[in-house]
């Protein structure tokens, strides 16, 4: 049985109550990207400022549940000020966190253990995979960020 405490860790509740990087950036110059979860009506707006290959600023607007809001806040704190290369690495580690559960993969091999220690506060989202319907809440802001990064000219 999965406990509520696995999902609603203190860090998550903290980011929900006091979201980081909340607000808007003037767009343009900032990139503005919207993400929707049509099933529950949640929506998120991510503002990105990229200068010289670095994500120099990020702001988050929109409404949603504690998981989608805290995940967006945690994401903003994790990627702000990082180079785009580092941002992509963080995204890929987060996605790994959301997809790999206990046990073995389809080919029978053991999944590569995720180094939770290296993930900082993001590790608090690890409990979400035990609640499959909530994964889409946690990934909404990240998918919106990815969509934004894809729009940045190489």
């Amino acid at each position, binding site marked *: *049985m999965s*406990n*509520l405490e696995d*999902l*609603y860790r203190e860090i998550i*509740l903290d980011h*929900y109550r006091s979201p980081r990087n909340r607000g808007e950036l003037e767009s343009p110059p900032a990139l503005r990207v919207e993400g929707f979860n049509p*099933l*529950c*009506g*949640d929506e998120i707006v991510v503002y990105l400022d990229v200068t010289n290959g670095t994500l120099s600023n990020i702001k988050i607007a929109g*409404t*949603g*549940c*504690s*998981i989608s*809001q805290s995940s967006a806040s945690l994401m903003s704190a994790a990627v702000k000020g990082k180079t785009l290369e580092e941002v992509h690495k963080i995204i890929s580690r987060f996605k790994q966190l959301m997809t790999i559960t206990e046990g073995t993969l389809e080919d029978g091999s053991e999944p590569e253990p995720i180094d939770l220690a290296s993930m900082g506060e993001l590790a608090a989202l690890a409990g979400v995979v035990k*609640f499959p319907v*909530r994964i889409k*809440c946690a990934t909404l802001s990240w998918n919106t960020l990815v969509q934004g990064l894809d729009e940045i000219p190489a």
Partner: protein
Amino acid sequence: MTSFDARRVRADVPLLRRKINGRPITYLDSGSSALTPRSVIEAMSRYYELRHANVHRGVYVTAEEATATYEGAREAVGRFINAPHPNDEIVFTKNTTEAFNLLARSWGAKNLTKSDAVVLSVMEHHANIVPWFQLRDEIGFEIRFLDVTDDFRLDLSNIDEALRGAKLLSLSSMSNVLGTINPIKELAAKAHQAGALVAVDAAQSVAHTPSDVTDLDVDFFCFSAHKMLGPTGIGVLYARRELLADMPPFLGGGGMIADVSTRGFTPAKGVARFEAGTPPIAEAAGLTAAVRYLEQLGMANVENHERELTADALQRIESHFGDQIRVIGPHNVDRRGGVISLDVEGVHPHDVAQVLDQFGVCVRPGHHCAKPLMKRFNLAATARASFGPYSMTQDTDTLLEALQRAVELFG
């Protein structure tokens, strides 16, 4: 004589014996789908075990029995909603949504023109909005929306104006979000006076209040079996006989024709014209059993039982939580059903539902396929608890206990 005892209904529903997260299930999502009693499940099993055959085809014994089972459901449903001519008025669809699509695509496409108007309300389920928009986008008629008042009732202040020149008034008899019961009989009389026909979305009311299409004097009446203790996969469109006789087919295929040649086809007469392909036969057997079950309980008894439960729940939520939890719906049980939408201060409905799940409490978070209504009250979503005939005050006890935990966790 009918007798009603919620404990007996509870004992008749196998699913209510389940434990969720170590606790007995507290099912408060009957507004979404009502749980099936054993007699319904057995009726469907009996069809598969004893008389599984296609309908309206074979001449062998089981095929005739299958046809009798299927057609028997039409009689049962007709009796349940007091349709005067069930065999010419009850069409089986997949669900309420398909019933509305049939109505729009058949009656609507034939009778509506660019200069016509259809009247809906802001509290409608998307099933009674989107098919009309789809047709409007092709034909170009006007769609008017009756508003909802701040105390969650239909705003009838401009009803005469709204009905002027309208061809159809299509309304929910009970809101799936607010629980509000609309005065269909009075509105049907007004609409007819104005020259409009009346369609009713009875999906939410059919299992909770008596239905009488003759007394209401309505022209179309749509509902789903799975909200009235029956199986999924079968719904009903009632259409007044003389209107149905003039409606063109909706889906084409086998079973709905009188003749087909290489030049074209002639549709069958009567309800068969709307039932292309092999219909939901086992589900029809289940629906008959559900009708019988509800008839034995007595719909007036079900209504009284749920009204008592709702009054008790509304009173306890208010006294326990005060301003922390807002009920999005009438606070008075007068003309109100057992659908209770909650807006918990500072807690998103998904989080409410998640905490409730830990207590084995099943509620529905979301916009309930009623986005115009959500927008009307500036909400993205609510957490909705809804009662069925098997619900008891102990369900409300657990709901309150779980809501208290949600408030504490996020407070």
